[in-house]
């Protein structure tokens, strides 16, 4: 099978899975919504985005960017430890394994137990994995040691997870292990035009602010308090169409009380807090608004280190600052299929480790 044939088959299988008449996907969405795992609006957003991004052309671009060869990793086995903080957050890893031709083992998140399995099932039906297994618990995966592991999560949990995988004979201590530990993104805006504020609202509030591509820090040439009414209008409109599924814990109110005592400018949106603080995120549901420009952005990038996923911009998209290429703000929650979590293309990484 040629590379083109293989990538076209993978793409066709995904396109077919995304069709509105796919009963399996519809059922998976229904169970996910009924189970309270994610909101229907967030799932629909993800599905709509995948329909736009997973095209033969884009898959071809990804294959070329990553140096994919036909049957590159046939006979190899890749274990994916999927997170579950966003609907279908493991989509790219599944697709990456399918493109390389490796066997797939997936530990599905208990927080997203229906959506990803429906994709895996669709790829299995089309014979696109040499061999594949998935389960909600490691005990239920066949004890076949993987040649590589794809993982997203906290740095300090890596060693514990490696030991667990060894116990379950799913991977050795020395098995190549791709760790993605980024936790948030930064937006640099230059104006408060309708386009900018709508993109910013989507980038901040989609998925309740969860996920490393979500914006937790904004750098703007104006204070948010100067335009708070306008901004909250956009937020309210967004929440009308996309009610926030996950509510913040009471610790958010505790933070609000603290800011109030400290005289920190803030806006309490009940489900979210916007505060005028130049600091790195340490709490979910908080947007840090920094009045400043390139100097402040550089400082934040340097302080963030590996915790930072992406820097988005409006006027400066495409520029590079402190080693970071600025991505369009509008792509925050709609990344290209070849986007690089923590700066690493999973296909290229697998090829480098296992070819």
């Amino acid at each position, binding site marked *: 099978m040629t590379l083109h044939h293989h990538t076209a088959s993978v793409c066709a299988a995904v396109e077919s899975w995304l069709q509105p008449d796919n009963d399996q996907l519809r059922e998976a969405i229904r169970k996910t919504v009924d189970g309270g795992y994610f909101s229907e609006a967030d799932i629909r957003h993800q599905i709509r985005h995948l329909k736009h991004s997973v095209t033969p052309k884009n898959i071809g671009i990804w294959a070329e960017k990553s140096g994919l060869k036909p049957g590159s990793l046939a006979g190899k086995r890749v274990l994916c430890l999927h997170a579950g903080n966003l609907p279908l957050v493991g989509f790219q890893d599944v697709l990456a394994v399918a493109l390389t031709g490796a066997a797939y083992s997936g530990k599905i998140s208990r927080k997203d137990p229906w959506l990803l399995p429906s994709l895996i099932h669709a790829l299995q039906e089309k014979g696109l994995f040499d061999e594949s297994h998935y389960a909600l618990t490691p005990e239920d995966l066949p004890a076949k040691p993987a040649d590589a592991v794809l993982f997203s999560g906290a740095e300090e949990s890596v060693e514990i997870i490696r030991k667990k995988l060894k116990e379950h004979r799913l991977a050795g201590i020395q098995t190549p292990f791709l760790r993605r*530990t980024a*936790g948030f993104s930064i937006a640099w805006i230059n104006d408060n035009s309708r386009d900018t504020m709508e993109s910013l609202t989507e980038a901040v509030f989609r998925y309740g602010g969860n996920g490393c591509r979500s914006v937790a820090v904004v750098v703007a040439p104006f204070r948010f308090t100067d335009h708070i009414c306008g901004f909250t209008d956009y937020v309210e409109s967004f929440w009308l169409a996309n009610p926030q599924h996950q509510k913040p814990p009471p610790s958010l109110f505790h933070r609000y009380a603290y800011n109030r005592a400290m005289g920190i400018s803030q806006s309490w949106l009940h489900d979210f807090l916007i505060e005028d603080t130049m600091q790195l995120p340490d709490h979910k549901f908080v947007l840090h608004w920094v009045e400043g420009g390139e100097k402040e952005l550089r400082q934040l990038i340097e302080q963030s280190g590996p915790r930072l996923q992406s820097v988005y911009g409006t006027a400066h998209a495409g520029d590079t600052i402190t080693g970071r290429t600025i991505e369009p703000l509008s792509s925050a929650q709609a990344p290209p299929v070849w986007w690089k979590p923590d700066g690493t293309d999973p296909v290229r990484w697998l090829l480098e480790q296992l070819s």
Partner: protein
Amino acid sequence: MTFIFDENLPFEKRCEAVLGHQLENHSLYRTFANTFGIRAEEISGYSPDDIPLLPIRAFKQAALYAASGSPEIVFRSSGTGDMERSRHLVADPSLYRLAIDKGFFRHFSFDQYTVFCYTPGYADNPESSLIWMLQHLVDSDPSGLSRFLTLGKKMTQNTFSTTVRQDKKVLLFGAAFGLLDLIEMDSEPLPEGSAIIETGGMKTHRREMTKTELRRILTEGFGISGGQLHSEYGMCELLSQCYALGGEWFEAPHWMRVTIRSADDPMRVCQPGEEGKIGIIDLANLWSCPFILTEDRGVMDERGRFRVLGRWNPDDMRGCNFLIEDEL
């Protein structure tokens, strides 16, 4: 204000008085508490567990002060370079002395022990609350034998010969990394009957290690039993200390209340065995802020003792986190 240390008064009563003082005299804490609906005129019978605890970073970001007049001492937490450091404004050092004495002499006495401090001296670090405490203890020893040891110099039997001749035991105070340095310098074992109080402070050491590993190395290195290796839990932001005698479980003195608070809801007190952030009410902090939510991770046992498990790590709260406890 010595009613704080009056054990005949129930803690709740003393706490209520201190809360009232804070609400009347500390505008920052008042604003914080008011946000939770707490007003000075409505605190009668208020449970200490229902008092909102101010996040400890407030000591870095503001001057927490509930007294008139200038502070007599300003303690600063350790830190380097651009690190934000906590500032504790102390209006009345006599309260600190009382808290030190009542905590320390409950467990140790100068009839039995001589205190040796393997830490910088007061002249080198006058802003450290720990060094201030140790200097106070050294000054309090009527025998005059207690002292600071020379940093970077290993301990030998000569170091303690006068103490041993006078039939006293050695009580060695030091931060964990300093004590490890002493062992690496091939210090000789401590005289029989000696004890150690380690004061925490592993974060600047060359490598991380568990508390259990630390205890093993210290007991073997100094030739003492585990029962003689004690820990002290104190910090720049607190005027009182907790001690863990011969183990890792700390007990608070009667003018302090330590609880474990849910990180998701700091108003909720965790059940024994449930991990959370360590919350502290230290009545000796009357003139600064007695109601503090630390960033230390801790757990309580059924007897009301607590263990310090490290720092609460806020990283990866938003990221694509694979949570071990949920998933494996």
